[in-house]
């Protein structure tokens, strides 16, 4: 009987121990991550949050390599090597609602918007210095405006879901498509807040954060795209006349690490080739993780064969625009120079003997380019490159720089006045002077339209090729000139600058014709991605089954 008691008591005690605190037993905290309740408590949280919002800019299809490649390939100044199928899809206007960049850039842009919305929702209640708080709010307004602007110029003729709040329950995550006018109202209101809240400059430690100038220049650009010429002039001139920016002497410094955040830069996206301690270096960036680097893969992917796969190649049209741009012999910088400084900053040909990594241009793999050309812009060609094994690039992607602002202002002024004004001509010539090419005269432009044509067909592509958020593509798109551009390259032949075959014209006529054939008006925008349509109940409304 004694045994019974012992066993019984033992079991009872055990059972008690286990069961007395069932509530406690069933309550477990997540040991892995900080819960949202513990966040948004102080100024350092607010700063981290706005940095995370900036971080969205680096994503691969936005300002990362995939986005840069595909937007560049849609326009007329480059063609793909055929290394990646998706590149070809964009060049040939064969994308569809399930093509990777179409889906991914959408997700990335809304990721940025989600983060900006969080900052705008929670930072106002964070106990911190009012001044710092306002700046962070200003940055969030600026970034949100930028993301929405990019969305509207890329997708569905500008009609996209419009979200300005943080969903607090899963029922709030579905949004209908809003007309672009409503989206633009938010963009303008965000930008006007940003202009008030943002500082004019930042100290060295904080270079790269948005400024008043970023917001003003963006607003100018949006008005230009909207053909609201007067407003465009106002904002673009305010940037030019602010005295905060000036053209730098060597345009190459707009496309390398050395020239980051120079006087010409108005807003740029930060990249860095530095690899986090203890992690495996890769040639591409690894974002939002504790490993790898915040690098862009553009330099690696675009570098000429022999240095990289050269997946995006300069087109012969670009070669001719830049190489046949007449040098101004009077300009000092042209001493000992056979091609313009702007050409050298952008592309090169084998015959040029320009330095290229630890060799010369001639070492690059020319058999891959139909025109004997290779990129130098945004390629780390000046580095002996301690990193040649990995080709990570830390070059910041410039989103808006003063040269763009000058050219946009010139365009807006002429459109606004219906005539070429001396100021507009001077803006154009500022850019040409810096490039060391002959300046234009008023007499060169008999009509306002001839000036606009010159900007669109010659000056902007020379200066801004493969830059910003697809500047060339959007110039053609907003001006309705895509088809015209495609026709030109399909009908013309371009010089091959390869030393061996100098003077031989080369192009792939059938390929260009296919581009022209494929292009239809609906290809000016990407469709709303299939993944959005299939997951958003407001947008999916499938046909009844009939099997």
């Amino acid at each position, binding site marked *: 009987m004694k045994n019974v008691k012992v066993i019984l008591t033992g079991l009872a005690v055990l059972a008690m121990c286990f069961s007395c605190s069932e509530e406690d037993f069933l309550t477990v905290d997540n040991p892995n991550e900080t819960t949202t309740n513990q966040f948004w408590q102080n100024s350092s949280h607010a700063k981290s949050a706005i940095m995370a919002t900036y971080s969205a800019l680096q994503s691969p299809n936005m300002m990362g390599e995939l986005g840069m490649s595909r937007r560049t390939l849609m326009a007329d100044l480059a063609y793909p090597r055929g290394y990646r199928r998706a590149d*070809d899809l964009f060049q040939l206007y064969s994308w569809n609602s399930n093509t990777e960049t179409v889906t991914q850039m959408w997700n990335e842009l809304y990721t940025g918007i989600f983060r900006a919305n969080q900052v705008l929702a929670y930072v106002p209640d964070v106990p911190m210095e009012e001044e710092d708080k306002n700046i962070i709010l200003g940055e969030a307004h600026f970034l949100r405006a930028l993301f929405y602007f990019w969305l509207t110029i890329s997708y569905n003729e500008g009609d996209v*879901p419009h979200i300005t709040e943080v969903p607090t329950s899963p029922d709030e995550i579905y949004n209908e498509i809003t007309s672009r006018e409503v989206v633009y109202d938010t963009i303008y209101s965000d930008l006007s807040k940003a202009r008030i809240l943002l500082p004019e400059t930042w100290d060295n430690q904080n270079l790269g954060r948005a400024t008043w100038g970023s917001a003003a220049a963006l607003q100018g650009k949006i008005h230009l795209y909207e053909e609201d010429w007067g407003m465009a002039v106002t904002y673009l001139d305010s940037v030019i006349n602010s005295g905060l920016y000036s053209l730098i002497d060597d345009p190459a410094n707009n496309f390398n690490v050395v020239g980051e955040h120079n006087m010409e830069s108005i807003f740029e996206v930060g990249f860095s080739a530095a690899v986090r301690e203890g992690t495996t270096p890769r040639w591409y960036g690894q974002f939002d993780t504790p490993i790898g680097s915040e690098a862009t893969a553009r330099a690696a992917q675009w570098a000429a064969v022999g240095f990289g796969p050269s997946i995006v190649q300069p087109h012969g049209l670009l070669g001719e625009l830049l190489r046949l741009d007449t040098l101004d012999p009077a300009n000092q910088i042209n001493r000992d120079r056979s091609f313009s400084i702007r050409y050298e900053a952008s592309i090169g040909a084998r015959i040029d003997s320009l330095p290229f990594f630890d060799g010369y241009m001639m070492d690059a793999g020319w058999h891959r380019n139909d025109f004997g050309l290779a990129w130098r812009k945004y390629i780390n060609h000046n580095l002996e490159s301690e990193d040649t094994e990995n080709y990570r690039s830390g070059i910041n992607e410039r989103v808006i720089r003063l040269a763009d602002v000058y050219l946009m202002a010139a365009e807006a002024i002429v459109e606004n006045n219906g005539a070429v004004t001396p100021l507009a001509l001077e803006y154009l010539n500022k850019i040409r002077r810096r490039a060391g090419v002959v300046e234009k005269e008023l007499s060169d432009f008999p009509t306002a339209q001839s000036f606009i044509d010159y900007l669109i067909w010659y000056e902007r592509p020379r200066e801004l090729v493969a830059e910003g958020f697809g500047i060339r593509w959007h110039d053609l798109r907003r001006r309705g000139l895509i088809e015209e551009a495609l026709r030109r390259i399909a009908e013309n032949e371009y010089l091959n600058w390869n030393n061996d075959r100098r003077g031989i014209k080369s192009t792939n006529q059938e390929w260009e014709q296919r581009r022209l054939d494929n292009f239809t008006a609906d290809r000016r925008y990407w469709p709303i991605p299939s993944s959005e349509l299939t997951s958003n109940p407001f947008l999916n409304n499938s046909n009844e089954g009939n099997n």
Partner: protein
Amino acid sequence: MTKLLIPSWHKLQTRTLISMTIGFFCISGVLAQTNVTGMVTDSNGLPMPGVTIIEKGTSNGVITGMEGNYSIGGLGEESVLVFRYVGFVLQEIVVGDQRQINVQLEIDSQALDEVVVVGYGTQERREVTGAVASMDGENIRRLSTSNFQESMQGQMAGVNVSSTSGAPGSMPTVTIRGMGSILSTGEANSPLYVVDGIPYQGTPDISPNEIESIDVLKDAASASIYGTRGSNGVILITTKQGRVGELQVEFTSYYAVQNLSESMPLMNTQEQIYNNRLAALNGGGTYVYDYTLDKHNVNVLNNTDWIGEFTRDWAPLQNYNLSLSGGREDLNFNLNANHFRQVGSIINSNFNRTSVRATTTFKKNKFHTTASLNLQQRQSEDVTRNLFDMALRMDPFRGVEDFGADELIGEEGGVRDMDELARAVKNTRNMEVNSLFAAIKMQYEIAPGLSIGANIGGNFDYNSREIFKPTFIFTDPVTGEATTNSNRIAEYERRVQDRFRYTAEFSTNYNRQIGDHEFSILALYSMEQFKQSVVDGSASGFLSNESMVFSNATGTPLLLGDKEDLRITGMLGRVQYDFKNKYLLSASIRRDGSSVFPEENRYGIFPSVSVGYNLHEENFFRDLVSENFLRSFKIRYGYGQTGNSRISSYVYIPTVRANVDYVLGPGDQHLENGVITTDIFNEQDLKWETSIQHNLGFDMEFFRGKFGLTVDLYERQSMDLLFPLDIPGSVGTSFSGNSSIIKNIGDIQNKGIEIGSFFRTQLGQDWDIRLSGTFTKNKNEVLKMGAEDQIIYGGRYTSSDDPVTVIREGYPIGSFFVIPSNGVINTREELLLARTYNSSAQYGDLMYQDSNGDGTLDDNDRVFYDDGSPDWEAGLNINIGYKNFDFMTVLYGVQGTMIFNGAKFQAYGYARHKDYVNMWSPQNPNSEVFAVRRGGSASLNERSWSDYWLEDGDYLRIRNITLGYTLPKNIQNRLGFMDLRVYVSSINPFTFTEYTGYNPDVGGGILNRGVDDIRYPMADEYRFGVQMKF
């Protein structure tokens, strides 16, 4: 020869127990002098050891020895001897003046006497009121599959087993009574496994040799005693237990070879070259330069079968099992050691499993305890996931490289995919799982009929995954320099996961019989905890590919890790009532608490009730139907509620994410810490998924047990289904956060019928014929979705392909919804029509049907096709014994299902599929195969969203053919064996199907059911085995 007599000091207890078993409580005082000897044999005349012989009404008893011999003393002329052996008909013989009594025991075909494990207890088959399917260990071992799940396929009605992958060590998907849950994450749809009373987190990998029996609780009335985890059914596994008697040694082994017989038709070099050029012309005009061919035209002489290059022919598979069992009534044991080893049919894949299991039962007075211990090691080498993919992709004119070397030859800018292929071959992944399982079950009888018990068990497993990415150099033969295709920096990754779970259960049991009323009452409280922690380390840069460990890394290793803690409590009450074996009732209620849900929804209550009526016990029934015709007839009805809580921990707790960094400053930039919420908050009021099930069953036995039939009808409604909904990209979490959100989204229903039957007969002395068949029909329908007209898309070949299945009200879950296609555009009219929805349509493109006629082609044009679950499935087992030969074959077939042919989709995508030889061209205008385009001008043809990729998935498969031979008794004796059987068998030798992919047995989770994302094809197997008993 050896006569096993129970030693006298042991007699008393044995007597007591034996008496109790038979149910006699009076001990005879008669003492007589007679001694009887004899031999017990089975119907084949083989001696039967271990048969219990007792003098009826006394505690005088013995057990037969090795040769079936026995000797029992102390008998009188009036004594009655009772011969008893599990599974055989009990025989009673009056001693009279006989001094030698030889007995032949017959197999008891009355399945109703079978003991069934029903969860927290056992019942005799006749008492069962729920839908429980069972399979004994003998049957499992006979099928000798690599894992126990496969042995269940087609053997138990209502239990669907699909082998998703032929990779060594991979386990098939098991679903009971259709898709009850639509949570596609993890094992949400998998049943709960309970091994020796301890619920398992995940799926156990137990060698079929270690299993005594498998019982499946199919209906909710049975499963609801497992509460929150019972909604997908419960699989109860009982491992081998000790048996009383002299030490018995059993050794079984088999050796098999595997062969990939299924294939995908691909183009040969000639066809490929022609096709590539044509594709380039279709795509963009001129021929796109092909490095492999144009630079080295000697390559046209190659005709590489890349899949063959990575396939092993006659890959061996081996299994060894040693089992020891013996002991006395009060102390017995079973020891089992098993080793299984499989070399995969694709290179770089292997699996081996070693397991030792020991079970001991100890009884003393009113105390009863069973302890078991299992130590297991599983090791596997996994083929890199994309190797098979790469093999599909590579052009046949590419030459084979020796990928074993560290230095490979490859020109700069050369063959594009060679580096990827080299990586796929050279990168290896090793997994190792070491686990220890220990459980102890104690029971003490406080008073007659009243006992208390505790069942405490734990499982620890240590899981390691290593990934090696060695360096290799592609050297350019011209420059002699390493090319960019090289992998210059070696990488090594090791992920270590340790998991611990324990269960502690405390129960009180009361059994009482009052007249014809028999009660059994159970009260139970249980607690479970599951903890895991993961450490994930990686490092790079090693001096040698041979010494890839962290200490040798030239870079600083990086460590990551996380933890999880999940807890469940349960409280259960159950009453079982039996009146005269005629009317049966079982009712239970369980309250569960789980830490995965927020506080408000933490507890769930799951009631159940079921009744049974043994009609054959009624006199009026006997008057109507002869016992010779219908021996037994039982009607069962059950109702129950079960839950499903299989979501991961913490999903309702919103978190922020660090490392969302940015860089500021010029030149030497500095990293700025970025922290933000990247996920959308999950549902705050997540709750249990509840399912309510009705079950009506009939059990019948005809012709004196020769033919048996069990029919079950069921209807199951699952409410508040938990489902990870895709989040629209516009929410902003898809790029760097969660792309889905768990919600309770709607209700579904499964209705079905299950039929299980058997037929056994003996023809003369020599023939023994046993057939058993199952038939299952299940109909699934989504009854309601949370939002009206909501359609959830899912089921993709890869994450970047278009979804092909949906969840939608009124349709089976995971129905294929795709755009109908209608041949190839061949006439001007067709082209103009196609241009109305797709401005870039060309001749040779797939002609889509703009189903909703809105002039655009988009997801709204999808229409319903079938789903990936079969309308019905059937299995048939045929066992024929002739003298010493035995023959077995197992057939399994499904009907009414569709498959998305992923392998074809992939082979088309890579422009490798043989169909392209006959593709559309102006010269071949009647082809049904669309024209492939390369050079970037993609058409819509190759999107996965059309019916072009859907195929009929019906099949009939011969799963097993076995021929065995048992050595004749006299030869066995001479060789010193008790039993010796050899057999040859073939696994999956024939499949009859119209499906053109690899394996029509596709399986997969909810939305992926029927989506064949072939990564590792199934092999067929040819086996030789031996079973010995000493």
